[in-house]
Structure formats: C-alpha cells, structure tokens
C-alpha cells in the first residue's frame, strides 16, 4: 500500500488568506505530494521485480482527492482507495485511518512520503508504524528486499545510515530514492478503468478528533531588498565594514 496525499504544487508559492484562517487553495494548482511519487515509484519497481503482487494507492481526503489517486493509477498502481472526508485530519488521525485500511487489505508493506510539502509534519509514516506495531524505516534513499527482511539506507543529518528491518514494515521515501516515471496519455486512459473504492470516514468508527486547533495562519516577515555590488572587492569591503560578518 502506498499512501499518497494531494498538495499544492511545489512550484506554486503558498498565499495566506487575508483573514488568517489558512492558506488559500481555491483554484490553486494541486499535485501528488512529490515524496509520495517516490514512494509509489518504488512500489512499481518492486512489482516489476516480482517482489510485490499488487499495489494499492490510498488517500484520506475530500472531493478532488480522486484526481490524485487517478494519477497514482496512471503511474501504474492496480487499484485505489479513497477514505472520504472534508475535514483536515491531523497525522495521528490519518495514521489511524491508514492502519485500518492496511489491516483490512492485509498488506505486507506500506510506503509513504517522508513529509508532505504543505503541512511539513513528517509524522504519518512513523505514527502508522507504531499503530501497526511494524518496523519503521524513515527517509529512505535505497531499499533492498531479501525474504522477510529489507536493508534500507536512510538519509540522516550526519550522512547515510544503513539499517535492516523485519517485514512487514512502514517505510518513508526521500527524494533521492528514485526518479518517478512520467505518465503517458494511454496510461491516463487506462487509469480511468481501474477500480477506485470510496469509504466514508464515518463508517470506520475511528476516533479521528483533532488535538490541535489552528488559531491563526500568517505570512512570515519578508526580507528587505538588498543591493547589487559591482565587484568582488566591493563585496568584501561591504561584508567587512558594513555588515561586519567577516
């Protein structure tokens, strides 16, 4: 199972709403979270290598989440599950929902993005692994399976860490894990005929109440415009005498 999220396109600058209630997403260009594309690409390669039999893309979200799942199907997933809610759930609630789906579907591996580029929480995979009681491998840039184990290279602050995890596991993808494939038009057509299940969040009977209340969303202070210097010597002079940083 690959967990995918619909987010604001990374090339678009987020605009805060005037009333401070959040980020304005009306009419904004949305895409699949880039890290989720890496997670899905890895799953596709596993299926191509004969390690995985079937790939489910799952997403928790409202109305247009279906578009993101269709993109996942066009990339090559076999079927999709949308847990439908218009509420903005927190990662803990999303992890509870995804646990429910992973158990119902009896999956052997969950791949997720390491972070969603909108909320930047970097939590969901870790929480899901905890709730399932499974092994956890975050920030993966290389994954090799060997029977009931996997060897994973993780991007950590100090460099690269290699760990071995027992399956089943939850893994979160870093951008250097792979290069996600482009979707071709015939794939988009094919995706329209692939199965898409919709499950109402309420029907799962889970406690998905939010623990955080967003009081305000504001824009950070901008930087004042600087100056263009004409030469390296002018730059060095300014850094020494004006900014006094060297």
């Amino acid at each position, binding site marked *: 199972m690959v967990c995918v999220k619909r987010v604001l396109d990374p090339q678009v600058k987020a605009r*805060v709403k005037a009333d401070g209630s959040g980020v304005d997403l009306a009419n904004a260009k949305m895409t699949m979270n880039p890290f989720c594309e890496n997670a899905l690409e890895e799953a596709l390669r596993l299926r191509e290598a004969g390690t995985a039999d079937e790939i489910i893309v799952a997403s928790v979200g409202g109305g247009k989440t279906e578009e993101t799942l269709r993109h996942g199907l066009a990339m090559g997933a076999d079927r999709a599950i949308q847990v439908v809610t218009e509420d903005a759930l927190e990662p803990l609630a999303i992890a509870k929902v995804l646990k429910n789906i992973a158990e119902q579907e009896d999956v052997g591996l969950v791949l997720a993005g390491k972070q969603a580029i909108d909320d930047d929480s970097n939590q969901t995979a870790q929480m899901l692994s905890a709730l399932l009681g499974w*092994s956890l491998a975050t920030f993966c840039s290389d994954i090799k399976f060997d029977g009931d184990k996997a060897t994973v290279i993780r991007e950590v602050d100090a460099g690269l860490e290699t760990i071995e995890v027992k399956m089943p596991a939850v893994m979160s993808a870093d951008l250097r894990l792979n290069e996600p494939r482009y979707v071709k038009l015939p794939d988009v057509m094919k995706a329209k005929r692939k199965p898409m299940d919709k499950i109402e969040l309420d029907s799962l009977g889970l406690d998905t109440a939010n623990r955080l209340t967003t009081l305000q969303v504001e824009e950070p202070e901008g930087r004042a415009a600087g100056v263009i210097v004409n030469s390296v010597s002018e730059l060095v002079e300014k850094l020494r005498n004006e900014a006094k940083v060297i």
Partner: protein
Amino acid sequence: MGNLVIVEHDNNEVAAATLHAVTAAQQIGGDIDLLVAGESCGSVADAAAKIAGVNAVKVADDAKFGHHLAENLATLIVEVAPAYSHVLASATTFGKNVMPRAAALLDKAQISEIVEVKSPDTFVRPIYAGNALATVQSSDEIKMITVRTIKFEAAAAEGGSANVEAISGGVDAGLSSWVSQAVSNNDQVDLTSAKIVVSGGRGMQSGDNFGMLHSVADKLGAAVGASRAAVDSGFVPNEFQVGQTGKVIAPDLYIAVGISGAIQHLAGMKESKVIVAINNDSEAPIFQVADYGLVADLFEAVPELDAAL
C-alpha cells in the same frame, strides 16, 4: 508537571541541537528533566547534568538503545512521558524519526518543528516550506513537540548540576537492527552550527569545482553547503543539502554560489542574518532575498574572492 527533553547524542557527546530544545522547554516553563538513552553513554549523562537549568537526568544505559532505533526508543519514551506535560526533542533526523512513533503509541498528536512558544499550550510552526506560519493550540495532556533549533538560542552547556538517575525500561522490539553509518566528511565545520556557510548549486558544474568553495570556506572558518540540485548531481553528499528537505540553517553569513533560489532552497536559509548571492543571471530569484548580490560568472568571482580573503 514539567518538561522532558530527549537528549540526542552519539554515546559520547550531547548533540548541540539538544541545547536548543532545552531553551524551548525553559520558555514553556516548569522543571526540565532530560532523558539519555544509549549504550555506554555515561559521558553523555555527565555532560547533560551540567546543562544550565536542568533538574534531573534519567539515564537508560542499555544495548537496545545503542543505535537509537525508533522502535526500541519509543517504548522507553512511552513509559517515561506520562509524568510530564511536555516532551521535547530537536527537529533533527533523530527527533523526527522517533518522536511521532512515541506520540502515536501515547495517542497524542505531535507538534512538529515549533519556532515559537506562545504559551504552554500554544506554539507557532512553519508550514508550506516556511511560506506560512501557523499558530496552533494543543488540547492533549502530554504535548509531544519537536523544536526547530535555529529559532531558539542554545542553553549554556555548563553551569548546571542536575541529579543523574539510572533507570531501566523499554523493550527490545526486535524489529530492526543497525548495520552501518557512512559519514563522508569528518573534518568539515558543522553545517547546522557554523557562523558562515558557503553553498554551491548546479552552477558549480562538478564536485571538483566545490574545491573552490572549500578553499573560501577554510579562510572564513565556514562550512560548505549545497542545493538539492548539487546533491542530486552527485557533486556533494546528502548531508550538505540545505532546504525544506535538507537542513534548516541560520548562519550570520550565507554565501549562495550558482544557486537559483527556489522556494525549497530558501526554506532552509532565508533566516540567515546576511545573505550573499553570486549568480550570472540577474533575474535569479536568489537576488530577491540577498542583502548583497553580485551578478558575475562564479568561475571568475570565486577565485577572486578567495584571493581577496
């Protein structure tokens, strides 16, 4: 109820990032205890006890915590946390890995990468690569928090004399094991705490050309950083990456060389005190955040800068 700060360390030394998390705990208020989990980590516990403002240090010295595997460490945090109102860790790959696992086991939300403490239950955190700041209020009785280090000064590493108490607990989940760690650059100045950083992007064209930046950096006592494009192209290893998905830094001086200034890169460096951009494209977005911009070919400007220093 008080604060528990999870100490990040390598079984020898306390990581600098932890000192910033201690300051966040000070701003929340109440007692501050530290949790040191590791293997043969006595020197870490001793150093932790000297951090100013710390009440007690709890030490779980056990092989199962030797490599800070999230599955094992989370079980210990879950046992210790209920005595506290706030559990904090730095928002480094260490904190990001283990804290959500512990939070979920406690059925608590995590408040990621706080940049400001408004009150004991209200915090500010960046979203959308720092293009928006959300003020969030938590209703959980234990608040699980990771701390963006650049927004909190480091607590004094000396001056405290906390009690050190050995504890046992946690389980060996038997789910994962550590194999190895590749650290490619040991003599480099630490990127996250450097006062000056010289960063290179795709414009550098090759890993060899980064030698020019290392030479400038050596003269300035600076660390070398990079854009994602430079890392993806294999010029430098991943730990050099600055940005939304790399390191978030705020040195006194950041010199961006051959970097265009994408939103995701700015997310990691725009809080620097002084930003310099060297780029041959006067339209590059990096100039919009630079205090000093130099429109020039880096292959001429960088050697000239090196000579001028």
